[in-house]
C-alpha cells in the first residue's frame, strides 16, 4: 500500500475556544486510509467542535487539520472534495424528493447529468433505499433519513467519511442496521471513517479509538491496545479509568 503514508485524516495540536470556554485543548489524532476510527466521548467532550473544524465551519486557529494530505485551511477545496459528512442534525431538504436531495448534492460537487443520476442510483442501492428515490424526504423514517444522508455523503466518492453521532435518536434496530451498513460500505469502498459516539457497543476491538474528555485527548490507538495500556478488561472500564469514573457511557 503505497498510499498508506498519507493519513486520511490528520489532526495536529488543535485547540479551540468559544470565548473563554476551552472546547478543545491540543488535540492530535490520525485516521489511516480505509480505517474505522471511533471518536468516543461524553456530551460536551468536544466531538462536535472537532468535527466543525474538520468540515471547515470554523477556522482552525491553532494547530492544523489535513484530509488526505490537503490542509483544510490552505487547500479547502481539495480537502473538502475528499470528505463526506453526516452531521448530527438532520440536513435533508424535507420538501424535496430523496433523489432531488442527492442530485442537489451532486451539483454542489460539480457532478451533473448521467454521472449524477448513475451515482445517485448506486449510492441509494448501497443503503437499500433504491425504491424510495421518488418519495419526499419528509415521508421517510428517522433511520431511513440517516441512511439517505450516508448515501449522500458517499455520492462524490470521498475517501474520508465523518459522521457526528449518526445513531442518536434512532431505535435499536435502525441503529444496528446503520452501524452494519457503514461498516460494509467502508470495507467495500476502502473509505476511512471517523465516527463520533458515546455508545461503546458501536465500537469493535479491531477499530481505532480516540477518547476525548473535556476537550482533551485521553487516549488514541487500536481499541485492544488502549484497553491493554490502561490495564483494564474492556473498553468500558478503560474509558471509565481514563475519564475519572465517568461511567454514563452506555456499555
Amino acid at each position: 500500500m503505497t498510499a498508506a503514508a498519507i493519513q486520511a485524516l490528520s489532526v495536529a495540536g488543535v485547540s479551540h475556544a468559544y470565548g473563554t470556554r476551552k472546547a478543545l485543548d491540543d488535540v492530535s489524532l490520525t485516521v489511516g486510509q480505509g480505517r474505522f476510527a471511533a471518536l468516543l466521548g461524553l456530551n460536551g467532550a468536544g466531538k462536535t467542535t472537532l468535527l466543525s473544524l474538520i468540515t471547515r465551519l470554523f477556522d482552525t486557529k491553532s494547530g492544523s487539520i489535513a484530509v488526505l494530505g490537503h490542509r483544510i485551511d490552505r487547500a479547502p477545496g481539495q480537502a473538502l472534495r475528499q470528505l463526506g459528512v453526516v452531521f448530527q442534525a438532520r440536513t435533508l431538504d424535507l420538501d424535496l424528493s430523496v433523489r432531488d436531495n442527492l442530485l442537489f448534492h451532486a451539483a454542489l460537487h460539480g457532478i451533473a447529468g448521467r454521472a449524477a443520476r448513475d451515482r445517485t442510483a448506486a449510492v441509494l442501492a448501497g443503503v437499500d433505499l433504491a425504491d424510495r428515490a421518488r418519495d419526499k424526504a419528509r415521508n421517510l423514517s428517522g433511520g431511513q433519513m440517516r441512511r439517505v444522508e450516508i448515501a449522500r455523503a458517499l455520492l462524490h466518492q470521498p475517501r474520508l467519511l465523518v459522521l457526528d453521532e449518526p445513531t442518536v435518536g434512532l431505535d435499536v434496530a435502525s441503529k444496528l442496521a446503520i452501524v452494519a451498513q457503514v461498516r460494509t460500505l467502508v470495507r467495500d469502498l476502502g473509505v476511512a471513517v471517523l465516527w463520533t459516539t458515546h455508545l461503546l457497543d458501536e465500537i469493535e476491538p479491531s477499530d481505532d479509538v480516540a477518547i476525548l474528555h473535556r476537550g482533551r485527548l485521553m487516549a488514541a490507538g487500536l481499541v485492544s491496545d488502549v484497553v491493554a495500556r490502561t490495564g483494564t478488561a474492556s473498553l468500558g472500564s478503560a474509558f471509565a479509568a481514563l475519564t475519572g469514573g465517568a461511567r454514563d457511557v452506555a456499555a
Partner: protein
Amino acid sequence: MTGPARAEPPAGFTLAQYLICLRGITWREALRFVHQRERFVSALVRPLVWLFIFAAGFRQILGVSIIPPYETYVLYEVYVTPGLIAMIQLFNGMQSSLSMVYDREMGNMRMLLVSPFPRWFLLVAKLLASTAVSILQVAAFLVVAVLWGVELPPWAFVTVLPALILCGLMLGSLGMLLSSMIKQLENFAGVMNFVIFPMFFASSALYPLWLVQQSSPVVYFICRLNPFTYGIELIRFSLYGRFDPLALAVVVAATAVFMTGAIVAYDPARGLLVRRGGGPG
C-alpha cells in the same frame, strides 16, 4: 481489497462544473419555492393587496405630478407599481437569506458550506438563485397588475430585467449580511419591524420624494440615503426603457458593499458560524 485505487481528482473545477453547481443551487431554490405554496401565495398577495386596496384609496388623495420618467400625469397605481416590485424583491431577499440561519435551514446551510467550491462562489450562487426566484414572483405580479389596468409599455417586461437582477442581488446580499451580523433578528417579525418597514416607507415606493421634501426635510434626507430608494428608481426608469445613472451607481455600489460584507462574514474565521458556535459536544 481495501486499498482505494482512485486517482486524486485535479485541483479546482472547470467552468462547466461551476455552472453545474450554480444550476443546482438555483434549481433547489426554485423547487423549494414551488413546494412552499403558502410562501408563493403570500409573495403574490402582499403586493396585490397594496395595489388593489391601498392604491385605490390613495389615488384620490394623492395627485402625482409629471416627474421623470413619466411624460404625462399617471394614476397612483402606475406610480406605486415599481415600489411594489421592489417590495417583492425586498421580502424575498430577506426571507431567503435569513431563512438560512434559522434552525430549520441551518442544516442545509451547513451542507452548502461543505461543498468544495470556493465559499464566495457558493454565496453568490445562492444570491443569484434567490434573485431568480424573486423575478418569477415579479413576473407573476406584473401579469396581474397589467390585467388590473396598470398601463406599462409593452416591452417593459424585458427592459426591467437587468434592473431586477441588480436590485435582487442588492437586497439578497443585504439580507445575507444581516443574517450574519444581527443576532437579535431571530425571527421574521423582527426583520419586518426593523428592516423591511423602515426601508419600504422611507423610500420613493409610495410617494414621490418631492412630496416628502415638502412635508419633512429630515425624512426626505433619510429617503435619499436609503439604497432601496435607488433600487425602486432603477426599476421605475427601466420599466420605461429609460436609464437613471445615479440609481444604477448607488445600487451597484451598495450591492458590492453588502456582498463583500456577507462573504467576509461567512468566512470561517469570522462571522456568524463562529459566534453561533457552541452547542453540545
